[in-house]
Structure formats: C-alpha cells, structure tokens
C-alpha cells in the first residue's frame, strides 16, 4: 500500500524527518534572496504537514510502519516507528510549523532581526529533530533525537548573540544536557539492563522483569526529572531563561517542538516503557506525581508575580506541562487520554498567546503587562485571539482546552486522588486570573496618558493571519476533538 507521492508508510516516516532537513538546506542555499528563502520554508512546512497527514489514515486503521535506520550497538538499533501518540505529536508540530513560519516572516522582518538565514535553517533542523522524537521506535532513538533537538535549538535561543543571550544559552544547554545525561541516560541504560531491550512496546517492557516497586519508582523519577524538557520543578529554569530569544523561537520552544517533545517523551515512557498497568501495580508514581502537582501550583503562583508578558507565559507553560506529566503519571485511561490531548490543546492555545505577545512587541513595542492598558482598542484582532488562546489554556468552552482538562479531572477521580483534583481546580482558577487579566486590561481600561493617537497600529499582516488561524484552531478543536480522541483511544486501548 502506498500513500502520498507513492511513498510507502515507513518511507513517509523517514521523509518526515528528512523533509525539514532538506528545507534547511534550501534555506541555506537561498540565503541571499529573502523572498525565495521564505517561500522555501513555507513550501517545506506545507509538504511536511501533508506527508504526516498521509500517515493518519493507515495508523487509524492499525498500521504501525517501522523502518530501521542503523544498528550502532548490537541489539540497540535506531529505528522509526509510527504509533498514534507519536503521530499526534507530529501532526501538532508539523501543522504549527506552517503558522509559525508565516508568523516569523512578519516578525523577523518587522523587527529587523539579523542572521535570518541562520534562524530559518536551525528552525527547520529543530523540526526535523522533533519529527525524529515523534517517530522514535525505542528509547535510544528517542534519546538521540532529544539531544539533537537540544543542540540545534541552542543557536535559536542565543540568536541575538548578546551577553544576556549567551548567559541564557548556558542555562538552557546546561539544564537540558545535564538532566538528560545524568538522569535520562542512566535510566535508559538501567532499563536496558533490566529488560534487555529499550523498544517501545504497548503494555511496556518492564512488567515481568522482576523490577521491584522501589526500583520502578526510582526509575520513573529518573525519567520524569531526566526529561528536562518537560520542565518539572526544580529543573524548569531553562524555560524562563530562554525568553531572551525572538518570539517565534519562544513559540517553537513552548508550543511547537521543545517542551512538547519533553512531555511527549514522558507520556511515551509511561505508556510504552513502563506500561500504565505496571505503574499502578507497583505504585511507582505515588511520590513523583506530587512533584508534578507542586509544579502546577507553584508555577501558577510565580506567573502571578510576573509583569513581563513573556515571563508570565513561560511560567504558565511550566504549569501546563505538568498537567500533562500528571496525566501520564496517573496511569489510567483518562489521565493518558487527557494528557495526550492536552499536548495539542495547549500547543494551539499557547502559540496563540505567544504570537499575541510578539505582535504586541512588534506593533506597540510593549513587553510589560502594566503598559498594555487600553491597547485592545487599537489592536482588536490580536487581543481577541489572545482571549481565545487564554480560554483554551484555562480550559473553558468554547476552546479546546476544556476537553483535555475534563479528561484529566476524570483521571484523578478514577485514580481516587481527590487531592490532585483539587490541585487542578485551584490551578485553573489561578490561570483564569493571571491570563484573563491581560485582555481585560487591554479592552476595558483606558490607555495611560490620555486618548491621543499613539501611532500604534495592528501587527504585520502575516502575523495577524497566523494568530487568527491558531485561535480558530483552538475553537475548532473544541467542536471537533474527534481525531485527537480517536488517536488517543488507540493509545490507551492497546
């Protein structure tokens, strides 16, 4: 059976990894001609999305295309395998790449950023690594692409090459590399030593290896903290630090690829390495789940204190990521279903918020929330979209986030953890206040310094298109969550 462009399904998975790389090469070759360069980026992103989409049908029908790339160590191959959870992540990342590219063009030009070719190049490479993470067939492959993603986003984080950017880059690289090498790699080798394999298998590979409850608990903690991209406290500092980067990079980090790769990895480890029944049987997540719960609350509280819009959004992300980690650690159908769906819901919601923040910065040159009073009247589209995005993050209809939060709540009840349900509730309230404060101030308060014309106009057109699209997507995901639901059902049903 062949799919799009006559590609067989395993080759389509490989193509998903290679297309962005190829796009990166094209960007490099066309570096001197900005218009064609941007056309190349948009073209590749569209192509990538089509290729990933072509895998949806077969995977829903039960196909699990697999392609071995290399076998560096005996018994330890690098291979791609498409399964529903990975496909969900790939769909989110590839579709958001299109809008982010669209947005970047407006932002980077509007902001007169330097080194734009390098920016688009590494952006494409990062997407390639994210596709690799999504389609990893075993922990080893996952680890490889995970590290590749860390390294190729580094030039993006330090894009401005100032001393502040360098410092942030050190924190970024330092935390992500140290957690992954010291904890995650240790956990992977430990898993290999226990199970004799590191492949992702429905139902997990650890059950029946004689791993005791204590070993399973330590191992799970090593994974949760070792996957630093999931930003579970105390390994969250890299995310606010990376705020020095241009806004499209923040969008990439927070919504498209990086943090999503983190929580996706946590979900994947819980579902396919441990197997959720094994987690419940051994009680492996009893303690570490409270680290996620604490992160949810603490990050929300910190977000409150931030006046800088991007910093507030960063802490909001940290909090929302732990929702997904919590869902994974609940280790029941509803928790995993909610966690998986929240990957998509949060992605579309948060990218809207970041696009909004970037648009405000480009058009009005404002970064602090307290300066945004009354800005909604001059930038209605931006703040309207911002409002929708915020609704989705909070988890109220008519935005997609409502579904995932609902399922996560069901998950806590199923697990009999009323305390955790309370955590979710409290955090949602906190989120409601700190996110809605922004559009409310913008729409209902009058601007400081009288009503005189400030010369502020709406953001560049491509940016507006991008953030309108993502806001619409958040609403559509509320009305039509079926694809996500179906994919996640396959994950928990298997």
């Amino acid at each position: 059976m062949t799919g799009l462009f006559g590609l067989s399904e395993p080759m389509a998975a490989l193509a998903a990894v290679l297309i962005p790389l190829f796009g990166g090469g094209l960007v490099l070759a066309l570096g001197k001609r900005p218009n064609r360069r941007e056309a190349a980026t948009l073209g590749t992103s569209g192509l990538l999305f089509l290729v990933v989409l072509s895998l949806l049908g077969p995977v829903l029908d039960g196909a699990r295309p697999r392609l071995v790339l290399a076998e560096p160590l005996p018994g330890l191959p690098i291979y791609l395998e498409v399964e529903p959870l990975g496909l969900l992540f790939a769909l989110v990342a590839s579709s958001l790449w299109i809008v982010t590219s669209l947005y970047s063009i407006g932002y980077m030009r509007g902001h007169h950023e330097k080194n734009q070719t390098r920016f688009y190049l590494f952006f494409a490479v990062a997407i390639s690594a994210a596709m690799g993470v999504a389609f990893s067939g075993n922990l080893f492959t996952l680890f490889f692409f995970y590290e590749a993603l860390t390294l190729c986003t580094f030039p993006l984080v330090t894009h401005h090459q100032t001393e502040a950017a360098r410092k942030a880059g050190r924190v970024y690289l330092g935390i992500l590399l140290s957690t992954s090498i010291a904890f995650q790699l240790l956990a992977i080798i430990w898993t290999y030593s226990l199970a004799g394999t590191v492949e992702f298998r429905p139902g997990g590979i650890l059950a029946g290896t004689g791993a005791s409850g204590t070993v399973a608990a330590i191992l799970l903690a090593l994974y949760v903290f070792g996957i630093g991209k999931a930003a579970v406290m105390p390994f969250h500092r890299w995310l606010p630090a990376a705020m020095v980067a241009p806004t499209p990079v923040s969008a990439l980090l927070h919504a498209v690829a990086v943090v999503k790769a983190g929580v996706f990895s946590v979900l994947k480890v819980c579902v396919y390495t441990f197997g959720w029944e094994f987690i419940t049987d051994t009680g492996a997540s009893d303690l570490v789940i409270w680290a996620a719960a604490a992160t949810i609350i603490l990050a929300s509280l910190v977000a409150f204190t931030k006046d800088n819009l991007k910093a507030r959004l960063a802490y909001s992300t940290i909090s929302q990521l732990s929702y997904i980690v919590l869902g994974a650690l609940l280790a029941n159908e509803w928790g995993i279903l909610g966690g998986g769906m929240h990957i998509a819901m949060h992605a579309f919601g948060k990218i809207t918020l970041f696009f909004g923040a970037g648009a405000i910065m480009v058009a009005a040159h404002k970064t602090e929330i307290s300066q945004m009073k009354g800005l909604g009247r001059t930038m209605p589209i931006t703040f309207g979209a911002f409002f929708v995005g915020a609704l989705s993050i909070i988890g109220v209809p008519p935005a997609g986030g409502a579904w995932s939060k609902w399922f996560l709540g069901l998950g806590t009840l199923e697990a009999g953890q009323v305390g955790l349900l309370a955590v979710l509730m409290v955090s949602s309230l906190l989120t409601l206040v700190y996110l809605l404060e922004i559009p409310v101030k913008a729409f209902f308060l009058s601007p400081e310094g009288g009503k005189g014309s400030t010369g502020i106009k709406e953001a560049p057109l491509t940016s507006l298109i991008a953030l309108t699209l993502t806001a619409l997507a958040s609403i559509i995901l509320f009305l039509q969550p079926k694809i996500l639901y179906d994919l996640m059902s396959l994950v928990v049903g298997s």
Partner: protein
Amino acid sequence: MINHLPILQVIVPLMAAPVAALVRKRGVAWFITVLATWASLAIAVLLLLDVRDGGTIRYALGGWAAPWGIEYRVDTVSAYVLVIVAGIGAIVTPYALLSVRREIGVKQAPLFYSALLLCLCGLLGITITGDVFNLFVFLEISSISAYALIAMGPDRRALHAAYKYLIMGSIGATFIVIGIGMMYMMTGTLNMADLARLLPSVGGRTVTVAFAFLAVGISLKLALFPLHQWLPDAYAYAPSTVTAFLASTATKVAFYVLLRVVFSVFGVVFAFETMSLHWALLPLAIVAVLFASLTAVYQGNVKRLLAYSSVAQIGYMILGVSLATVTGLTAGLLHLFNHAVIKGALFLAMGAVMYRVGSVRIEAMQGLAKRMPWTMAAFVAGGFSLIGVPLTVGFVSKWYLVLGAIENDMWLVAFFVLVGSLLAVAYIWKVAEAAYFKDYIGDLDVREAPLGLLVPMWALVVANFYFGVDANLTVGVARQAAELLLGVGP
C-alpha cells in the same frame, strides 16, 4: 614472510629509525617514516585478521623456544592494541610534515622522525611481546624516545616538562624492574604464560610485593590519578604531532600492560580476590574522572585542558577494569580505541590552530570559527564524541561502562560516569563558545589550515562517527578480548 609478521611488526619501524636519522633530508626522512608506519599498520591489520580466524599466534624469537627464548605472542587483545597504535601512527605521520616544519628546526627534523619511529617501535614491541623483561626494554625504548620528542617542543617549558616526565617515568620503570625481578626470583621464568602457570603455586609475600611494585610502576606510566602530574605539562608543551601521537597511544599501551600483568600473568583470582585490586582502582578511577575533569574546566591552555581530560579518560578505562566483568572490561577496551580516536582528532585540531595562530590558549581562539571553520568544526565534533553524544564512539564506551556499573549494582558509580560527561560538556563548551560566539580579534592573515593537516584530522573525526554509527566491529573485538582476558566464553 607471513610467518614472520610478528617480528616484522617491530623490526620495520626499528630499522626505519636509523635510516631516517641518517638521510639528513627532511622530506626524505618524512617519507621513510610514512612508509614505515603504513607498513606497520598493514602488518597489524594482517595479524588481527589472522588472530580472529586462527587463534593465538606464537612466535619464538631466533628460533629459541619459550620459556628460554623470548616469545612474541599475538592474541585478540594484543592484535587489537597493535592496530590502534599502528593506525594512529599511520594517521599522525602524514600530518607531521607541515606541523613539524612549523614547530621544529630543519636540522632536528630527521632526528625527530627517527625518535618518532623508535617510540612507535617501542609501543608495538610492548604490545606484541610475551616476555616480561622484553616488555620492560620496549617500555624504556618508547619512554626515552618520548622524552626526546617532548623536549623538541617549541616552548622552552617543553624541556622542563620532558625532564619531569623523565624522572617520573624512570621511577615507574625501575619499580617495574623490581617487580619483574621478584617474580623471576620466585619462579625462574620471564615468559608470561609460564609465569601465569607457576605463580599460583608459589604464592607468598614476595609475589604480593612484586604485584604491588608492578601495579605502582605501571600506574605511573599510565598516569593514573594521583600519579598523573607529569602528564599535563608534557602534553601541553610537546610538539603538536607528538601530543596527538602520545595521547592516543602511550597511555593506551600502558593500560594494555596493566591488563596483561593483572589478567594474563597474575590472574583474576589473585588480583581481585587475594589482593582486592578493584577496591584500590575503583576509588582512584572515580576520583580521576571527577577531579581531572573539574581541573580541565579551569585550564586556559586548551592542550593542557585536553591533557587533564586524558587523565579523566584513563579513569574511565581503569573503572572498566575494576568492575572485573566482561561488560566492564569490554567498556575499558572499547574506550581504549575510542579515546585514541577522540583525543587524536582533538589534538590534531589543536595542532592546526598552533600552526596558524601560534598559540592554543582560549583567548587566542576567540572567533576563530570564522577564520578556521573546518578546524573548529573538527574540534566540536571530537568534543561531542568526548562528551558521549549518541552516534559517536564516545557514546558507545559510556553506554557499556554505565551498563557494566549497573550490572554490578553500582548505581553511584554509574552516576559519576555520567557526571564526568557533564564536566566534559563544560570544558568543551568553554572552547566552543570562545570560537563560535566571540568576535575575532587576532591577526588578519589567519586562514584555514592547509589540507595536509585537515585530511588526517578529519580522517579521525570521520572514524569517530563511523565507529559510533556501526560499533559492531569494535564491540565484537573488544568483547572477544575481554572474554579472553577473563578466561570465560569461547
């Protein structure tokens, strides 16, 4: 001819050395050296193939059968090390032409090549011999020529470094002779296989003392922490070619000697059960990894930084040995090869910087990536491998080392190995950040290194990735060698 391969392995560089010294023409001497090293590599590869097919090769020197005569003995372990040593020699010598022209006087160049060949001859001899006293002689051939080579460094501090190395090295060698003498006193033989047969039945305090003298002496040559003080200066001030060559071969061969003495002569039971060697080696190895890596972070001279990193890497190898399991020993042997490839590439990159810039201090490397993109890219690629990024050889050794530690239920050890990797990130990062994220401030006429330097450098970089993507060959050989040493398996 084919039957005499073991002796040719040593004779070829030995005979080439005086010829190189006598021709007095720089170019000709270089050409002879290249020929001799490539011939050595060819012989080593043939020997490895032979051994993998037909088992251990025994060669009686001059027809005098062991245990009276000197016996050369090639098994998987020694053939593996021979290929590594000869291979590094074959890659480094083409590089030497330009580098030596820049760093060493015209008159001394032929003598330099002569000493390089003698050093290679000594290292190959140590590896191939089956006689402990012969081993000592070759050890001193390689050491004395190494002192001379280091002293030829462009800076006057090279002289002092070579002197310090000479004193420490001679103490180590004398300790080894004492150990050998005591073993001979108790058994009346110098042949390794014979010793292995006789020693268990003799026992007693003299054997214990002999073991202790040998262990300390070899540790000095090996630069095992805390006997490593000679190494950083020697590597930092030696000519670039010599640093690359010695860093990839000399300590590796000393490590091989340790394996031979511990596993083939005294045996696992004596070394690990009677003497509890692992409880001496394990803490030292961990301290070496942590302390030397930490010291490396604070170095301003990149060659010195890499030298401290070498001390840490030796710690990794010793760690593998102290686990005394097949996986652990496989990891140690793998790292022997992998580290040779990694450090070779890194030091060759530094040699190219030295060639163009004339300094290897971090300040001199600011913004250098724009001027010498290929060289700095090679450094970063080698650095990735040193850190242990997946798909590089460094990852392969780390994987087996951690696996070995976990199999022994040594969680903390596994953790420390990974912490060592993190420190490697820190010191490699320091250099990479200076090269890529600072503005260039040096001379305007600095440009990319010539091809004569780039090609050998990149050959090693490619090897880093090739054997990282497909490690089946190295892992297979290393495991076979480990099983041989431990006396288990087929």
